[in-house]
């Protein structure tokens, strides 16, 4: 197991380097720059700004400056947000994005697993139909629409919870954004769980267990759940990455201070430093998540471990 983990960690290094390099150069290929706003800057000002951010140097030199700073943990300045460095902004925003994403992940996964299992056990009976219907709604309604509906119903009409904002992470402020993130994640998890559970329940060894006279609970707990989890676990990695990177719509609508919003706005602003910073951070998160999932998979499925 230790060898397996070491191999995986080492193989992440070239991946990270390629990603940083590709991102750096692709960004510069895009037309427009960080100082192309609605108003033309006087040429001297523009020249001063470009010199300040080293944009006047040859691209390859800028790249080496960036990478050497990055190796020292310095993400450099943002070109749009002057009062904070990229590292400061990410450092402030990351806990919010993690709180949001991880809470939605835990809740969504648990809800999805239970709903999927219930559905499978009651296949083609009313609880199954009801759950499938809810799952489909969670999956097909886009999150910006769901957010707006929840905001109107629970924030404006019923006035049960705040319609947005953060307010030092008080629980009521988190209810709506987390719900919006939970629905599609729980939906996908439930669908996978239902499918694989139905498959497992129709296998020969479950039939054997049944004919031995084992109770349904015992069959589920001892024989069905673990193998049924496999396809779900392989989805959890991308699922978590999606929750962490895909929270930008939710962050925008509910005006939350996470880093998801920078992902898009910085790219549109051509804020080179912030785009790279956000991308690198997300890259590490995704690499770490994938690694965790693979370890979990190896634990669940011996075939993976020994191959």
């Amino acid at each position, binding site marked *: 197991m230790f060898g397996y983990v070491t191999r995986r960690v080492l193989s992440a290094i070239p991946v990270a380097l390629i990603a940083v390099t590709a991102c750096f150069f692709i960004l510069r290929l*895009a*037309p*427009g*720059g*960080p100082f*192309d*706003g*609605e*108003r*033309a*800057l*006087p*040429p*001297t*000002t523009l020249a*001063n*700004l470009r010199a*300040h951010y080293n944009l006047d140097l040859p691209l390859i030199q800028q790249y080496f400056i960036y990478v050497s700073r990055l190796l020292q943990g310095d993400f450099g300045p943002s070109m*749009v*947000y*002057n*009062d*904070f460095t990229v590292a400061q*902004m990410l450092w*402030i*925003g990351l806990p*919010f994005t993690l709180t949001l994403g991880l809470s939605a992940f835990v809740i969504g996964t648990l809800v999805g697993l239970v709903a999927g299992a219930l559905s499978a056990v009651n296949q083609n009976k009313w609880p199954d139909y009801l759950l499938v219907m809810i799952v489909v709604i969670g999956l097909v309604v886009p999150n910006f629409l769901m*957010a*707006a509906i929840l*905001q*109107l119903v629970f*924030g*404006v009409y019923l*006035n*049960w*919870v*705040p*319609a*947005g*904002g*953060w307010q030092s992470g008080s629980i*009521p402020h988190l209810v709506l954004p987390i719900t919006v993130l939970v629905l599609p994640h729980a939906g996908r998890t439930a669908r996978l769980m239902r499918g694989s559970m139905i498959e497992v329940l129709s296998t020969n060894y479950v039939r054997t267990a049944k004919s031995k006279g084992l109770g349904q609970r015992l069959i589920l707990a001892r024989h069905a759940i673990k193998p049924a989890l496999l396809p779900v676990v392989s989805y959890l990695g991308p699922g978590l990455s999606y929750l962490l990177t895909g929270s930008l719509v939710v*962050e*925008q*609508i*509910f*005006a*939350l*201070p*996470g*880093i998801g*919003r*920078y992902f898009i*706005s910085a790219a*549109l*602003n*051509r804020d080179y430093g912030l785009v790279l910073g956000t991308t690198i951070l997300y890259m590490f998160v995704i690499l770490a998540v994938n690694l965790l999932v693979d370890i979990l998979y190896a634990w669940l499925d011996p075939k993976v471990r020994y191959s």
Partner: protein
Amino acid sequence: MKITQTLTAVATAGAMALLMSTAASAVTLNMMNGSEPGSIDPHQASGDWENRIIGDYIEGLMTEDADAQAIPGQAESHTVSDDGLVYTFKLRDGIQWSDGTPVTAGDFVFAFQRLFDPKTASDYAYLQFPIKNGSEIAEGTVTDFDELGVKALDDKTVEITLEGPTPFFLQALTHYTAYPVPKHVIDKVGTEWTKVENIVSNGPYTPTEWLPGSYIKSVKSETYWDAANVQIDEVNYFVQEDLAAALSRYRAGEYDILTDIPSDQAEWIKTNLPGQDYFAPFLGIYYYVINQEKPPFDNAEVRKALSMSINRDVIGPDVLGTGELPAYGWVPEGTANYEGVTPYQPEWIGLSYEERVAEAKAIMEGLGYTADSPLPVQLKYNTNDNHQRIAVAISSMWEQIGVKTELFNSETAVHYDALRAGDFEIGRAGWLLDYSDPSNTLDLLRTGIMQDGAMNWGNNYGRYANEEFDALMDQATTEQDLVARAAMLGEAEKIAMDETAAFPIYWYIAQNVVSPEISGFVSNASDIHRTRWLSKAE
């Protein structure tokens, strides 16, 4: 049943906590402020969402009243020399930064030097270029800061010398580029001075919390000279980019003021939130630029035909639904220093729309452009629902006169990069006046200047060039008599518009929504509303 009970219990507890906290705390103004501030350093800021915060915590020599007119701020009085070149300001007694350090004339001198310093690279330094040697220092041709026309005669007296008489100078001093900055703090911590742990203020409020992406909180400063008349104790400037969500949060009572709305909700707001809509014209123009280096757009007749076939009357009320007023001239109505000039109207204003189209069609046919062999036109705009609606509407209006429009949209940075590079035929642009003076929009049409072997067209994207126009603008810069100056500027506007230097489309309107609990909010042409003038009913 149980779930309902639990939910009710949670909701009740939450509501009680909320009630208790408001009862215990001060009067708080919750303002939907739009984007995340790029900086709250007055020399680095560039947007109105930054201005709202900065203007509440720093005060210049002059400041704005509730109607956004220039009134004395840190200076209690001023005198102007007879030639209009030297302004002498007397600072108020006892003014201080929020840490107790006195505000001195030296802070102003330091601030102006820092503003023009090429190392600061301030975007908006050019707004203070009327000051002697300001532009020379910013461009690096003068390196001795002592040459700058801002001097401290003593701790209480600031003397500002101008390049030429500038009738709008006092108004320009209300702009944040003219604000003082705390030298004693900047000397110590440098660019970190805007961090809440370092920041000091000389205005009515002091920033105390800043959570990027969420909000900035400022609290009332007790050291402000007029603190006794400041009603609101705390202001939260919330970052909120999604406008539909902003309206929901306003309706849920989470915001007292919305500074922008989703434009398709304007009618709904007028009907359902009566008395809370503060939709009023303010100084800004939405227009299209035409690249006059590319034929056939160098032909004024083609430009005229294109312009007159735009049905401006339907853009505001129908295409956008917010009721923007049609624009035919270049200087917004209500602009200061423009007394005695009748608003510009093209000679075809008296024609009905059908007659205009017929005339435009005749012009285009005369040049060989018909429905069968139309003039192909590229129309570029930055990606945005409203820009798109307008572009689609206008392209169908042009279709009637033998013009086939191809629409291109791109994100803001790419769009303006193309406009500046001259890589367009017709492009969307907009301008909000920095201060209330006709020169602020007319300057957009000045011929570019030769710099380092290349033409620098600045914000004149369409590359309109007319010597007579430029001469009038130059003449107006030195004219001291305001009426004569206004007449010159009016003539310049007429020259440019008669030649259809650009297509003005509509005058912007400010779209504020203000809770009935707030009083003191006055719609004004600058759309500047300092918190100092507001109060909130408990």
